């Protein structure tokens, strides 16, 4: 078989043809930054991250110290009042964001790594392997939102690693679908066929030829899944299966102080506003990215 020498990459330069495309996701980032919603979302997200990371250093008390009577109203001593055990609400809000960020981001990374791997393999292999992977992922898809995590919590108890893993797993089907669709499109192009023709190993083709060329849709998907991870992790803490007492955690705080919603609304409202601001900011970024990717075409971006 004669191979056009033009198509054969030089030794050690396997990724050569796709090198200029590698920064596709950077392009998307730059264009997304031009949109106001992305800027607003990023500033909000960064502020909340700063609070979660460094808030503890300016907190007036420690998160587990009893500072007053339970459900005290806000005062100069405790600006947001005290919780059901008499701990300072402001302090616990300042401490309680870190777990949301760490767990949410970990779950998203796990879901993305596994989802992208499966999607790449399915999109490149096609036929039986493709069918098998996608059908198995359909099964995961059938468990709505936090139900899959709850099934496993009922067996192994509320372990953090389990929650993170199950939230990650429940993202896999959708991430794999997006990856697969993008992969199928890229695989049909010449440079991938050329690499395959000269015997580049399949793993290298997927990592160095296909992956860089589908980075934009994956970036968008990562942003979207991060929003849902935070929502799911907060929801699991809220129903009592995430962070366990006496930890300071926004979701758990809402759960613990629910009964005070009539007498001392701040105890519940403060963590509610933090979670709400966080998920809205993450979604603004995700929305900005997806608009940037489709070329700011509003109609298709809304679909």
């Amino acid at each position, binding site marked *: 078989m004669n191979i056009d020498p033009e198509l054969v990459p030089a030794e050690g330069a396997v990724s050569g043809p796709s090198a200029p495309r590698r920064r596709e996701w950077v392009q998307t980032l730059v264009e997304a930054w031009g949109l106001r919603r992305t800027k607003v979302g990023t500033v909000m997200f960064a502020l909340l991250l700063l609070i979660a990371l460094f808030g503890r250093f300016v907190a007036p008390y420690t998160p587990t110290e009893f500072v007053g009577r339970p459900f005290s109203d806000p005062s100069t001593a405790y600006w947001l009042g005290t919780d059901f055990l008499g701990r300072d609400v402001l302090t616990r809000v300042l401490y309680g964001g870190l777990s949301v960020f760490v767990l949410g981001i970990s779950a998203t990374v796990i879901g993305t790594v596994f989802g992208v791997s499966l999607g790449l393999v399915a999109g490149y292999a096609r036929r039986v392997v493709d069918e098998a992977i996608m*059908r198995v992922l359909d099964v995961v898809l059938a468990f709505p939102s936090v139900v899959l995590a*709850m099934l496993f919590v009922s067996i192994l108890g509320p372990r953090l690693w389990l929650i993170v893993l199950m939230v990650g797993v429940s993202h896999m089907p959708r991430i794999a679908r997006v990856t697969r669709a993008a992969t199928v499109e890229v695989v049909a192009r010449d440079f991938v066929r050329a690499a395959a023709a000269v015997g580049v190993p399949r793993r290298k083709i997927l990592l160095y030829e296909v992956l860089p060329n589908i980075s934009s849709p994956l970036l968008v998907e990562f942003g979207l899944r991060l*929003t849902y991870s935070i929502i799911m992790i907060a929801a699991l803490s809220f129903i009592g*299966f995430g962070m366990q007492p006496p930890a300071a955690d926004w979701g758990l705080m809402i759960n613990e102080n629910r009964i005070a*919603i*009539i007498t001392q609304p701040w105890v519940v409202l403060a963590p509610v506003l933090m*979670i709400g601001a966080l*998920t809205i900011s993450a979604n603004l970024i995700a929305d900005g990215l997806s608009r940037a990717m489709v070329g700011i075409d509003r109609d298709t971006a809304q679909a």
Partner: protein
Amino acid sequence: MPPLLKILFMRLGLGVLTLLLVSVVVFAATQALPGDAAKAILGKDSADTERYEALRKQLRLDRPLVEQYASWLGGVVRGDLGKSLVGAGANVTDLIGKRVVNSAILVLFAALVSIPISILLGSLSAIWRDSKFDNVVNIANLSLASLPEFVIGIIMVLVFATAVFKWLPSVSNVNSLMPLSGQMTLFVLPVITLALAVVPYVSRMLRASTVEVLESEYVMMARLKGVSEPRVLWHHALPNAIVPTIQVIAINIAWLAGGIVTVEYLFTFPGVGAGLVDAVANRDMPVVQALVLLMAAIYVLLNLMADIVTILISPRLRTGLR
């Protein structure tokens, strides 16, 4: 076989296969239990080997896994979901029966409220594209879609039940002994919360598909023929725009089956969601299995129905040209 029938049968087969695999996952999950159900029931008494062995035999835990799965699945199909591990060990079917009815009513109300609102908002923002109305709806949708349902619910409680107004009850302990009509106020906040969580997705989809239809050639043709604008909208554009939205509506109602978990828990509404939280907290495996299987089955069946309806009404698939 005609191509349409073939597509329908394949889709049906796929749905059944997914359901079977879901049941395998739900069954297999319990096998990860440290110890087994007999140990869980006896608790500290499981040191009593004789009783432990007898219970194992009674629960058929001494049989091979495949046989256990087959008899469990057979029971599920006949409506026998086993006995609860908590309290007096009532039949799971009796335990969850009322909860299923309550949740079904809740989801039905939520769908009845959210679908017309979504259609209205979606089509109006498509007609008045890029207007102030469109922008406001867009931003409201984006914000609502990013909020967890329980956050929306708590804000509803603060506004309508406690801190601002005291119009509605903040707890929805629906009682099956009293007539439903006397307890309608208990449904208001959970229904609004669920509806607010669904409207953004459906109305955004409807807006997108309406925009597409409004720019199509046949709508332009109708306008050129002098058909009045309202008639263009109601007779030509909207019916076609709703078709691609059917799937999104189905997915969202299916999502409600899982999304009710946090909302029911928040309002202490006696439905399957709050029941699942209780069962998980008590590690009452038969109830967990039954409820998880039910929620997953609803999701699979609604998706199946949406796909079949889409196949039946889209001409391209009807004629078998894929």
